[in-house]
């Protein structure tokens, strides 16, 4: 058993939040050890967790701060792109990855400058806000989540990882270690986001990757954020587009089909009706741009 050195176990930070213990591990192993034994919440960039603590929505006994762990902050390029969980948004926003251009675009649209400097991809993904940016991108791209615990490692497909609003497939003691995304060479990719105000969560967002061959759609991935309990993969719209040319009519039909299976909430960002309208227009505009470019 690894001993937790007590000099790094600061009990009781006092903030407006409730009392909470704070532990800053020196390695992932140490973090996993602690998580195995204590009722704790993993803290990375803190851009969602800290506000939740301040609002007293969450009251964990401990915070385990993995934000400073260098071993979890990396971007490794191969056929598959591997991204460490504590990689900051700004690092992804400032790196163009061939075959994964969409990630740079999505990262540059997360929150505002302050959030992007501090927030991490893993934190955003594990928080699973139904209006967050990455979940739609990772779902569209069939990413894989590598999850670690003291017991070992397991892999989960993005589609299965996002279970619902603020709910992911992570068990107590587990930490998201890495995100793996297959490179999509030859795909046109875009992430578009509709917000009421700069820096806000998406009212609706669209991740789109499309492979054209002589104007015919060979493959297409469409996923929305902000319009359902979690990321919404628009399979019906994909079906309409596959093996078709991007004609006005096809685009229109795909846009209409994109809302199939979506169940947008009505809240202060917009009504369910409005979100459905925005979805259709998002896809239509994005496809029109791609049709014009090709």
């Amino acid at each position, binding site marked *: 058993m690894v001993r937790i050195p007590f000099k790094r176990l600061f009990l009781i930070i*006092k*903030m*407006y939040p*409730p*009392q909470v213990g704070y532990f800053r591990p020196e390695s992932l192993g140490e973090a996993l050890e602690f998580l195995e034994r204590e009722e704790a919440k993993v803290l990375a960039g803190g851009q969602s967790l800290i506000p939740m603590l301040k*609002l*007293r929505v969450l009251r964990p006994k401990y915070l385990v701060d993995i934000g400073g762990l260098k071993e979890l902050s990396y971007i490794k390029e191969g056929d598959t792109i591997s991204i460490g969980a504590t990689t900051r948004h700004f690092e992804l926003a400032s790196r163009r990855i061939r075959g994964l251009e969409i990630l740079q675009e999505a990262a540059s649209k997360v929150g505002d400058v302050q959030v992007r400097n501090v927030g991490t991809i893993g934190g955003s993904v594990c928080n699973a806000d139904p209006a967050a940016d990455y979940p739609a991108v990772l779902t569209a791209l069939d990413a894989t989540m590598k999850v670690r615990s003291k017991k070992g490692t397991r892999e989960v497909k993005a589609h299965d990882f996002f279970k619902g609003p603020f709910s992911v497939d992570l068990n107590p003691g587990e930490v998201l270690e890495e995100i793996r995304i297959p490179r999509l060479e030859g795909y046109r990719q875009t992430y578009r986001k*509709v917000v*009421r*105000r*700069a*820096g*806000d*969560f998406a009212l609706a967002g669209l991740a789109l990757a499309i492979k054209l061959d002589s104007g015919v759609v060979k493959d297409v991935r469409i996923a929305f954020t902000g319009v359902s309990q979690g990321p919404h993969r628009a399979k019906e719209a994909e079906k309409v587009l596959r093996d078709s040319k991007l004609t006005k009519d096809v685009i229109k039909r795909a846009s209409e089909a994109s809302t199939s299976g979506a169940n947008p909430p009505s*809240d*202060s*960002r*917009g*009504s369910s*009706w*409005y979100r459905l*309208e*925005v979805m259709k*227009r*998002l896809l239509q*505009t994005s496809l029109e741009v791609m049709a014009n470019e090709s």
Partner: protein
Amino acid sequence: MSYSGKSVKRLYDDKFVTGRSTYVDDLKINALYAAFVRSNYAHAVIKRVHKEDALKMSGVVTVYTGEELNRVIKEGIGPWTTYIDPRPWKIPKWRFAQGEVKYAGEPVAVVLATDKYRARDAAEAITVDYEPVDAVVSMEEAKKDKVLVHKELGTNYGYKNDFVAGNPEKALESADHRKKVEIGNRRLIPSPMEPRGIVASYDGSNLSVWYSTQIPHFARAEFSRIFGIPQSRIRVVMPDVGGGFGSKAHIIPEELAVIASSMMLGKPVRWTATRTEEMMATNSRHNVFRGEIGFNNDGTLVAINGTLEVELGAYLTYTEGIQPTIIPLMIPGPYRVRDLKIESRAIYTNTIPITMYRGASRPEATFIIERLMSTVADELKLDDVTVRERNLVREDQMPYTNPFGLKYDTGDYLTLLREGVKILEYNSMKEWARKEREKGKRVGVGLAYYLEICGFGPWEYAETRVTEDGGVIVAIGGTPHGQGTETAIAQLVADELQVPIERVKVIWGDSDAIPAGTGTYGSRTVSIAGSAAVTASRQVLEKMRRVAARAMKADVEEIEYKNGEFVHKREGKKMRWEEVSRLGYSGKEPGLSASVTLEGDVTFPYGIHMAIVEVDEYGMARVKEYRAYDDIGRVINPALAEGQIHGGGTQAVGQALYELAVINENGQLAVTYADYYVPTAVESPKFKSYFAEKYHPSPYLTKTKGVGEAALIVGPAVIVRALEDATGGKFDFTPVIPEEILKKMK
């Protein structure tokens, strides 16, 4: 040497830009911290407050409820009687909740603890047994008087008064056209960057209060009335205040609880609102006008007949009484319409109490009358400018007494309209937008006119002191809290005394240092506090001439003052400013200070503003540009005046397109800063601001009128009009949210 008219840099900004300012929360004082337990119910009977667990917690000193607090809080919070006649009002007694809560968020108990974290933890440990009773959370329901907010009043109507001028029924009948209208502003939340805060210290005989407020002297008077302590034994200090917008000119029960706790415990007590608490401390706007207008073929508006409903929330705040009494008076605006009936109604609901907000009644009135002008234009297919030209009060009618008796002092409304159309390039921008729309873009240009009533008397205090070493301290009853008015007043005084501005220090906001005052609100401070400061400075200069005359053994008439020198006109002898200052404190003279309480009246600035709005395919509107042309009287500091246009214009963007304080069906405020959209720099338009060179002076010594609220008064009407131009839709309620825009786009 002349400072007035120049963009002198703000005198005291270093501390703000270097983080050394002192807001209430920055004050270091050995105080207990207050935290509040709040009701989740809009209306409920308080059966029992369980304090036991909280009292056992470490650091917790005590817990008070209304039962204890209201022994000290003797009188209730009442209306601002300087401006609101309480007689026609039905006013519930408003102290700390006792026995019953009337809105969700109302404080039910206060915890006093040794630090704010313990205080908050303890507040969470308190449970309250409620018995919910029927609540009425919308004006429409409240109007039925089925469920009453205050049983003892017998009605939810707090105020009913019909403002009638001429014969609107007859005018409607003889008009060429009649049209039904419904126009309004929904509820919003003022957002000062610094939330409310208070520190109270009662030592057994004197009460000191450090308070984030716009009105320290009125607060002193109110605390005196409420707690039964003579004003002379109360000191209210306003440290640096991070924004007010009218939302820091009322008193809330939390603040009374802090003072009462200090009085009961004999210890200093403090509280700073969290953002969530700040959002519940002040809600604003929410008014609807429904009625009918009559107009003729030539575009003249001849009759307005309708009902104005203003929401009050659960209690009558210090400032909300202004709205239903001043909106009707200002509905005629700068136009000649003389036959009106405005049935003004103010209605209690089980919601967060409502207060004034930048512009206070003039934005509401301006939105109504400008929407009416645009409605006439649309109905007759006339241009917005033409319709206004045909309705504006003409120069030969000035000073003009409006149908409700307001006397518009000076101005040439028609000339300003015509100049403004040129300077703002209205016609060419309209044409540009039309061409852009032909290309498929949704852009639009809109304008609106406003006439503002500001100044608001009744008086202001100022004292000018010349110190022994020749420095000048100007103490004003005005209370700048971000506007930079202190710089403008230093400019005026430096000019009056012909001394370098570096010699002049302006102080305010401490009721012990400044014996009397009214405050900063209603775009009044340069005019009324500035004029008082100039008057006091003149009197001091007169004293100095007398001192110089005695020293030079001359008659005071023989002494001329110029540029820091007192000259014996006949003999040519001179005395320097510093010499006279020193002599003023030689023991032979009574010192060099003079104070005045200067009377003042209302004055009426006016202007035309224009916006360019672009709407995307999702119905999201952005204000790209905002242009303003105003006659605000003499301009003392153009940069400060422009700053007011920028700030007010940005808040106008918020009111027109973004800011909606959603109250859910349970009466709870359903937004946080995650979805209550205060515009950021990204949503702010590019500004162009011009002031009329041939201005029309106010009767004030400074010849100034006021600019603090102009852009928020007219901005919402301007932006909505541009939005209509961009989309072809019609919008009569603020904020216009994207899905409403999208529906009209289809």
